[in-house]
């Protein structure tokens, strides 16, 4: 992993964090906002897992375990919020 690439990932993560915060600050929390926040969280988690944890080039068993954790957690949270919005 080149240092430059890590820097790009870092900046992307910082921007995404501010974006999440901004969505939270600005007005109504509707379905769109919840989905957006969760998608951002998924992307951030994906970057951390692939590039910081360096699981990108590890065989699927391990990569899948952690990615699966990320997606399963977010999916269940989405379900819970979706049930709450109804």
């Amino acid at each position, binding site marked *: 992993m080149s240092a430059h690439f890590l820097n790009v990932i870092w900046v992307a993560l910082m921007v995404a964090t501010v974006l999440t915060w901004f969505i939270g600050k600005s007005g109504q929390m509707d379905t769109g906002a919840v989905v957006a926040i969760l998608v951002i969280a998924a992307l951030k988690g994906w970057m951390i897992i692939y590039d910081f944890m360096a699981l990108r*080039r590890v065989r699927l068993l391990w990569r899948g375990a952690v990615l699966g954790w990320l997606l399963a957690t977010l999916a269940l949270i989405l379900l819970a919020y979706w049930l709450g919005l109804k």
Partner: protein
Amino acid sequence: MTGTHGASHSSGHKLHHYPPGDLAIWVFILAELFAFFVLFNAYAFTRLKHLELFNEMQLTLDANAGMINTLLLITGSWCVARAIAAIKANHCRHSAHWLLVAIGTGVGFLIVKYFEYGAKFSLGINLDTNLFYTFYIALTMFHAMHVVLGMTILAFVWKKAMAGGYSAHDHHGMETGASYWHMVDLVWIILFPLIYVMR
């Protein structure tokens, strides 16, 4: 200590058999992730039954502090990733410096948490104030203790790095510590929007 993940980066497309660091830490990481998985879901589904309480109480939280802490942890994670990149290029001193900055972000995180909790505790809020605060304090405090543990591990790694204990050929131990630290970051990436932002 073996350096199985060290020199093989140039080889390109071949997948590694094991994740970076000691497999023992990965068993621990998976166990911890599972615990947080249960905690997050417990929060999300308990919230369903107490929507008004959770929505109301969430507004009392300091989302700015939450955001700053997210930035700090991400930066810390980035520093550790840079430390690994540096050691792979055999830049021992650089690597150690990156680790120190990472520990610094952990300190920053705890300082922000100190003020955040201080504001809450001075209002007499504690673990048993109401169901939302039970979750808020249990989850964030449990996570904060992971930050402390992660910092402790990084401190050991830093000490060894300063003593020249790692090299491009052998940095298995550093990768072990790094993996744990990234896990602490990863958990917060979900914790922040869940507790502070999403209503």
